């Protein structure tokens, strides 16, 4: 391997060798260069005459951040043998390190994730600095992968099947204190400067103890905590464990199942060396899977692009919000107040009456309590957050706010009235943000005294958990206002996606299509149970009938009628008039308005269960049946096609915005990598062909957008 050796090899007079990894580039990652250098270092260690111990440390801020994702993402079919070979070389070196007759310590001075932590697992002892921000874990599953550098095998051997599960299957990242408690590391030091000395001291402490130089799994008679996978108690749990995974993934994400499989093989069915090889095989089988590519694309690349806020105008100095006004203390309003207060912003939570404002504050308290009881917040932190929120029914209290977010009922006249009442008390420079999911910002800003300060910030419910915010600029919104909106979204730790002011913006427009398609199918006479289940099996978090019941059946009708009345859309352009007719009949003729109104497509029983409303039988035509694949694709493809149209029309600026907004805002199935990325691994050409089939069978709304046809021609991914 060419290039500079990235591992500094320092042999001290006391017989302890310190390997310090310091790679070029932003962080230490496990790539080909590292593997070669690591092998060379182990070769040297094996040939040392008076070796007494080894310390593995990092010369960079982080210990090591894992595999080389750029390399993994670029892999193509045909590269599998190469990856297998790399893993074998890496694992061989780790095994040789483990088998050295001297103790080996990982001195973890910075974050050790994925391949970084796997390196530490190949040491006899793991000592970490207990400092804020340092994270330890194996997050591979979140990118559709499994730890492939021995992490599944070693962690399972070390902690046992059950105890290792959350760290492998959920990819939990731990603070040093948590990692110590869970057994992922052996000790912590509080002072970064003391780390190497402590590592050295430990080697001295165990000098002469042959056991200390052996990995648990290499000790005679070692028993995995909790027993082998073949013990009757564990064997009986494997199918249940698999079923529990299935309940989460619906079989759409292969990585968790691969992990569980390798865990069971590693827990006593195979010897460690065979298990490590099996782990490599299962890792390699994932690298070119579409689910893996999609998850890396979205959660690694797109997420970073969106978080950078590329749509923020340049050259405007950041001006953090210090005082925020939130008008409307309901569901959305109190959530926004909570999120802002949590980020250290003082909030005036305003509503028409002080009772309503107090209710909003009580709701914030409930959010705080939940986190305190789960150990996510300390009591004093929670109290400090709540103390920043001031409930108020006095319009004048909003004076002095840098930004006001209006989160009142989604009706034009209501929003207009709120603006008229509150805008006069605000400072000239204050930003007015409307939290609307559908109303046009340009129209809402028409009555504003300062339309250049007016912007849309569309939050998602529940605000305390949903990270996405759609930013919508009106015709007159200034660059300065836009920059401040971006800064505010970042300030409260959320992700901004800039969308054009058009009906439904991006998220509402897209989510409506798949729901409308489901309703259209009910109207056609297809089996509602099948529609509901196949929606879930497409990967949506809930079935479409459940979704519509939750939203309420009148809301989509109201929004549609409003849009028609405002001249934004024409009724005759509705691609699924059956869906609209169904909603009207359900809501207004049959009195089935949704869950909150006592029942919609479902009856809701006192025991918390629900069952399909038997009255749906009036639409059912038993002779009308279409393939399950078509039912599933009709919902999924409507959403994907609509997303592509949004990209084509400039409603969103970049594919990454569509992917992240669909994943984080409207429940796009994780394995798709977002509604636009879906096309890339489905194959643009195949996608267009499937659109053509669906269009021929079910109507022109399935016609592939031009952008898909262009990419089908070139074969290039939509990025």
């Amino acid at each position: 391997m060419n290039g500079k050796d990235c591992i500094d090899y320092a042999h001290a007079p006391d017989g302890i060798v310190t390997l310090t990894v310091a790679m070029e580039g932003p962080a230490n990652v496990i790539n080909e260069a590292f593997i070669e250098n690591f092998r060379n270092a182990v070769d040297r260690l094996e040939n040392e005459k008076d070796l007494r111990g080894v310390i593995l440390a990092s010369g960079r801020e982080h210990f090591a951040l894992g595999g080389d994702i750029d390399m993994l993402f670029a892999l193509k079919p045909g590269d599998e043998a190469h990856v297998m070979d790399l893993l074998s070389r890496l694992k061989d070196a780790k095994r040789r390190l483990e088998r050295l007759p001297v103790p080996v310590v990982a001195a973890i001075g910075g974050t050790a994730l994925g391949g970084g932590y796997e390196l530490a697992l190949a040491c006899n002892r793991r000592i970490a600095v207990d400092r804020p921000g340092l994270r330890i874990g194996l997050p591979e599953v979140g990118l559709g992968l499994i730890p492939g550098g021995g992490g599944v095998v070693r962690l399972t051997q070390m902690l046992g099947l059950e105890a290792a599960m959350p760290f492998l299957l959920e990819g939990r990242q731990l603070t040093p204190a948590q990692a110590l408690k869970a057994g992922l590391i052996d000790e912590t030091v509080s002072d970064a400067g003391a780390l190497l000395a402590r590592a050295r001291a430990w080697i001295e402490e165990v000098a002469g103890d042959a056991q200390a130089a052996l990995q648990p799994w290499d000790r005679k008679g070692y028993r995995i905590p909790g027993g082998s996978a073949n013990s009757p108690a564990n064997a009986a749990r494997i199918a249940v464990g698999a079923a529990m995974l299935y309940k989460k993934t619906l079989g759409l994400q292969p990585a968790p199942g691969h992990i569980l499989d390798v865990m069971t093989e590693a827990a006593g069915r195979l010897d460690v060396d065979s298990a490590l090889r099996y782990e490599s095989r299962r890792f390699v089988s994932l690298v070119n899977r579409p689910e893996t590519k999609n998850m890396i694309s979205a959660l690694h690349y797109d997420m970073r692009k969106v978080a950078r806020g590329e749509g923020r105008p340049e050259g405007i100095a950041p001006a953090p919000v210090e005082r925020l006004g939130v008008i409307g203390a309901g569901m959305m309003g109190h959530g926004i107040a909570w999120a802002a207060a949590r980020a250290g912003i003082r909030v005036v939570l305003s509503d028409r009456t002080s009772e309503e404002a107090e209710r909003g504050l009580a709701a914030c308290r409930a959010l705080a309590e939940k986190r305190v009881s789960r150990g996510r917040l300390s009591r004093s932190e929670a109290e400090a957050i709540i103390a920043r929120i001031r409930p108020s029914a006095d319009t004048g209290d909003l004076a002095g706010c840098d930004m006001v977010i209006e989160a009142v009922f989604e009706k034009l006249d209501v929003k207009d009235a709120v603006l008229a009442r509150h805008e006069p008390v605000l400072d000239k420079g204050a930003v007015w943000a409307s939290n609307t999911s559908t109303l046009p910002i340009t129209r809402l800003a028409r009555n504003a005294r300062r339309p250049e300060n007016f912007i849309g910030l569309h939050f998602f419910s529940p605000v305390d958990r949903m990270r996405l915010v759609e930013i919508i600029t009106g015709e007159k919104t200034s660059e300065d206002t836009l920059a401040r909106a971006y800064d505010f979204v970042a300030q409260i730790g959320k992700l901004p996606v800039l969308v054009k002011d058009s009906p439904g913006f991006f998220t509402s427009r897209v989510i409506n299509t798949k729901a409308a398609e489901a309703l259209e199918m009910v109207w056609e006479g297809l089996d509602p149970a099948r529609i509901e289940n196949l929606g879930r099996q497409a990967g949506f978090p809930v079935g479409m009938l459940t979704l519509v019941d939750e939203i309420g059946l009148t809301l989509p009708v109201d929004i549609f009628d409003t849009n028609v009345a405002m001249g934004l859309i024409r009724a005759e352009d509705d691609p699924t008039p059956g869906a609209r007719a169904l909603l009207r009949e359900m809501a207004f003729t049959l009195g089935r308005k949704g869950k909150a109104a006592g029942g919609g497509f479902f009856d809701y029983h006192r025991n918390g269960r629900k069952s399909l409303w038997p009255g749906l039988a009036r639409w059912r035509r038993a002779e009308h049946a279409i393939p399950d694949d078509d039912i599933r694709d009709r919902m999924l493809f409507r959403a994907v096609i609509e997303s592509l149209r949004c990209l084509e029309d400039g409603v969103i600026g970049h594919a990454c915005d569509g992917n992240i907004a669909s994943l984080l805002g409207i429940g796009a199935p994780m394995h798709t990598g977002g509604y636009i990325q879906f096309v890339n691994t489905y194959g643009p050409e195949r996608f267009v062909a499937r659109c053509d089939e669906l269009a021929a069978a079910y109507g022109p709304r399935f016609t592939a957008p031009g952008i898909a046809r262009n990419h089908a021609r070139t074969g290039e991914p939509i990025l």
Partner: protein
Amino acid sequence: MTAFIFDAVRSPRSRGKASGTLHEVKPVRLAAGILEGLRKRHDLDTAQVDDVILGCVTPIGDQGSCIAKAAVQAAGWDESVPGVQLDRFCASGLEAVNMAAAKVGSGQQDLVVAGGVESMSRVPMGSNGGAMLTDAEFVLERLSVPQGIGADLIATLEGWSREDVDAFALESQKRAARAQAEGRFARSVLPVKDENGFTILAQDDFLRPDTTMEALGALKPSFAGLGGLGFDEMIRTRYPQVLEIDHVHTPGNSSGIVDGAAAVLIGSEKARRDLNLEPRGRIVAAAVLATDPVIMLTGPGPAARKCLERAGLEVSDIDLWEINEAFASVALRYMKDLGIGPEITNVNGGAIALGHPLGATGAMLISTVLDELEHRGGRYGMISLCVGGGMGISTLIERM
């Protein structure tokens, strides 16, 4: 060549728990006792037996290492007699019969004992592991769900309520109790005795003759918990027309977990002549197949149809039908699939009342049907079982 049934015997069945009467009996002794009983009834020269095939579904521990050969030795049979254990899940006992019939029918062998043994109290069901139960990769990729979830799904798909399956179970109890009271099982049941000749168990003691719809209705569903953990989600992937699985099966309307053993003496015309054996019946045809492994339990109907086809007979030609009552919905589905009524199906009750000693049941049902055909003067009897992996098995016998 015709495969005659010279005799069919079985042990009584008892609860397959430590509290069961047969728990103290080693499976090898249980099987050997049946072989010994069979020998005595016919004063059989065991050197003439070409093979002993025993079904056993959990062939580990006490039942491991080819229990068939061990039982042959324990029974003190001639050292020339070989033995083989097989496992086709719940079909094992009937598969043993069908294999014996095939060996005889093909002229390969002349006299074969086919049967099965299962001491569920000593070797718990599922304790032998296997890909379907303990391999996460297989479970996830093949949607391998517990059989009870499949049984509940059958009921859900067919619209059979808890009352429907409980009513079927109650009837099974009534029929079994009446049959026992009338001595219908007396010809084939051989008491289990200890080495001193003391009787440990003389007749089936698993029955609950006094049970009621109320008592059955009070039992908790067996598979709701497992279903909720994720198996319902798995099976819905294959059956998207079902929003919620109605978990109707309980210990009261599912087959009983019991201990037991059975043996059937099957032979050729030559064996009949040489040993002067009187045929009670013959095996007309046999069939085994597989259907959807996810719902798992819908194989019996198609297997019976295939068997009828091989025999060139119609549904209406069959005098008695016997479907193993693994779960009430399995029996109900079988009757529906074949268009047959309860008056000719499981007329003496079934495994809900009597129990289902996995590897032995199929062979036990030969005696159940043959006895009843003789009692009624009927001609044809069809025996079917649902089988793990979606398989179904059927054997058609004719009384002689």
